[in-house]
């Protein structure tokens, strides 16, 4: 049907508001649906939000699509890395998609997000496109950082996505700084600073949290607890792995990070709280299927049974698929078609990214400074290669 084809070609996040007949196969209805989260929220020093989440058929379809695109992108990145088209470090996010997607659904592009190096999917959630993501991974000029950053350094300033950071924990004080600026400029927006269970023990988090609490900054610290800091399980790294409580005097909420609706509810709650009262900690109970990075098989410190168990019981995409069937929003065949099309889109994006050339050699010397005063910079042989910094 022509209308169904039209529906599929619409950008996932902008489904039309017009009501459709109840008999339509893939629902794009924005009628309200209330769905219970998988588990109730566990709260620290605050009353938790309700387990009942307001969503809509259109939103659920968007969740399914967005997470599927992310899943496909990360799996494709795995292959590209093994084919040596991606070099250096590559930290994949598959399994954790619900955090990126649920968070985005709760906030606006005026709110800020900052994360560490497992950043490809946050970039997509903030409106980044597949071509610039793959091009950046492959070090091409069409990349979101023009090939100069690489996997760990994706940014999208116009969507208030501040990267993309390689040093564990550093992004959290930075995130509190973003929140400081938001409050300073009286913007009524908030910042989500994402970090892992490994980073949760970093002292700089507690320093920044203390200041944020004193100054009532709209900072939301989001611990993506995937239970392993590289090869070290949480119980071996943290005396208290109750990360939502680690803010001590700062309230916290523990969330099933594999349930996109729970994530959305928690992030909405957190934003409202942060803008009114100051910092709050969210702990997202999530899981990464891949190892820490492409250099880590991920199976020397966890069992394959554990990994496949999570995939079977808690996969975020499968959970939404079940909801779609339960509420009769699409058929299995339709979802399968959508997934096939996503796969084609990802492949097409990779092909387009491969066409992009490597950065021009002059890019070696661009962007060292915003204002270089015309000083000279040098290559390895300063008498052979030099440039003036504008």
């Amino acid at each position, binding site marked *: 049907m022509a209308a169904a084809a039209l529906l599929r070609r619409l950008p996932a996040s902008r489904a039309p508001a017009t009501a459709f007949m109840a008999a339509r196969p893939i629902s794009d209805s924005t009628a309200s649906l209330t769905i219970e989260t998988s588990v109730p929220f566990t709260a620290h020093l605050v009353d938790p939000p309700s387990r009942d989440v307001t969503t809509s058929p259109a939103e659920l379809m968007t969740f399914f699509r967005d997470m599927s695109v992310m899943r496909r992108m990360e799996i494709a990145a795995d292959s590209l890395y093994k084919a040596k088209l991606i*070099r*250096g*470090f590559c930290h994949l996010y598959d399994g954790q998609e619900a955090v990126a997607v649920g968070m985005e659904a709760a906030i606006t592009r005026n709110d800020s997000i900052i994360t560490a190096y497992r950043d490809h999917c946050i970039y997509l959630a903030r409106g980044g496109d597949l071509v610039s993501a793959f091009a950046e991974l492959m*070090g*091409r*000029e069409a990349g979101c*950082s023009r*090939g*100069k*950053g*690489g*996997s*760990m*350094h994706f940014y999208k300033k116009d969507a208030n996505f501040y990267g993309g*950071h*390689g*040093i*564990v*924990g550093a992004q959290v004080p930075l995130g509190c700084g973003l929140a400081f600026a938001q409050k300073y400029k009286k913007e009524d927006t908030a910042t989500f600073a994402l970090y892992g269970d*490994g*980073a949760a*023990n*970093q*002292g*700089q988090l507690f320093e920044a949290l203390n200041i944020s609490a004193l100054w009532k900054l709209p900072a939301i610290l989001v611990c993506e607890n995937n239970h392993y*800091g*590289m*090869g*070290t399980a949480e119980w*071996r*790294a*943290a005396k208290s792995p109750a990360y939502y409580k680690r803010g001590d005097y700062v309230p916290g909420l523990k969330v099933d990070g594999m349930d996109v609706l729970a994530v959305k509810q928690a992030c909405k709650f957190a934003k409202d709280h942060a803008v009114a009262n100051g910092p709050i900690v969210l702990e997202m109970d999530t899981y990464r299927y891949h190892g820490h990075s492409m250099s880590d098989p991920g199976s*020397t*410190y966890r069992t394959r049974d554990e990994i496949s168990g999570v995939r079977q019981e808690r996969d975020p995409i499968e959970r939404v698929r079940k909801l779609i069937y339960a509420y009769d929003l699409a058929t299995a065949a339709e979802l399968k078609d959508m997934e096939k099309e996503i796969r084609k889109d990802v492949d097409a994006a990779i092909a387009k990214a491969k066409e992009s050339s*490597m*950065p021009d*050699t002059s*890019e*070696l*010397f661009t962007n*060292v400074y915003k204002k270089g005063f015309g000083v000279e*910079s*040098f*290559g*390895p*042989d*300063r*008498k*052979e*290669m030099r440039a003036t910094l504008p």
Partner: protein
Amino acid sequence: MLGAARRQLGSGPMLGQVLQRLRPAAATNAARGYSAAAKEMTVRDALNSALDEEMSADPSVFLMGEEVGEYQGAYKITKGLLDKYGPDRVLDTPITEAGFTGIGVGAAYQGLRPVVEFMTFNFSMQAIDHIINSAAKSNYMSAGQISVPIVFRGPNGAAAGVGAQHSQCYAAWYAHVPGLKVLTPYSAEDARGLLKAAIRDPDPVIFLENELLYGESFPVSAEVLDSSFCLPIGKAKIEREGKDVTITAFSKMVGYALQAAEILSKEGISAEVINLRSIRPLDRAAINASVRKTNRLVTVEEGFPQHGVGAEICMSVVEECFEYLDAPVERIAGADVPMPYAANIERMAVPQVDDIVRAAKRACYRAVPMAATA
């Protein structure tokens, strides 16, 4: 071989024992018809064996760092050591450099000999206050009461495609500070001898390895393999003798300098390659002796050029043998920009063999290759 042992150990009763141990080995080798350098060893194995032997010899030596134990080491340098020495002596830390570095320095104050691993030296910046203010300066501030026999080791400098935050060389920064010793091994022999020396040294030592060298194999003699083997701190090694130009280098750049020397020799330029091995103390005597012989100098390093190791070497030469210089000192270093990710511009950001060859020729006032002369 025996002469080398004598130089390292000086005279005294120790020498006799060492000679006793070396003589039968030499005799056996001769009887079997082996050459002294029959065995090869990777830098990784050299480091692992050095740690193993020093932990075996001294129970106060312990290891600390991220993934050094159960994971067998992020780069497998500490493989097998947890199984051998147990969790009391091989400690996996959380990802908290400031905290565990402070703890390591405190343990050294109280008489233990920690070997603290930074997964890369980029992460040492989280802990640099402890390295400088708590470790480097303590012996001085306490008038000798509190010495700090600690080793900080890990990969330093550029790897391949790891981007700006994971590629910096910290040799110049750490070598700037009195109270620290800074070592930069190149070969497997360097790795073994210098790490053992570092662990035995009573002062804080920054031990800068290189990720790309871990898998490289080098020939090692029986002497190097012996558990008593140790290299002196503060002494450079002439890797290749020459008479036309001196090239100083450390770590991975030593390999590049040797390749450059080979190319230069085919063009009639005989380059002397100095493997610095020690950035602090710097072997000024060796460098200046070489420059007095060759009259020309090229310094090579991977790190940023401004205020780098080459700048110090140049000044040292100006101070001590200026009249011997027949040409300005040439400097090859990393590009003066944060490390880019894209492969083509990353390649432009690190020194290549061609850069060293070109600079050496400039120092020799030769722009075109010359036929080898008698």
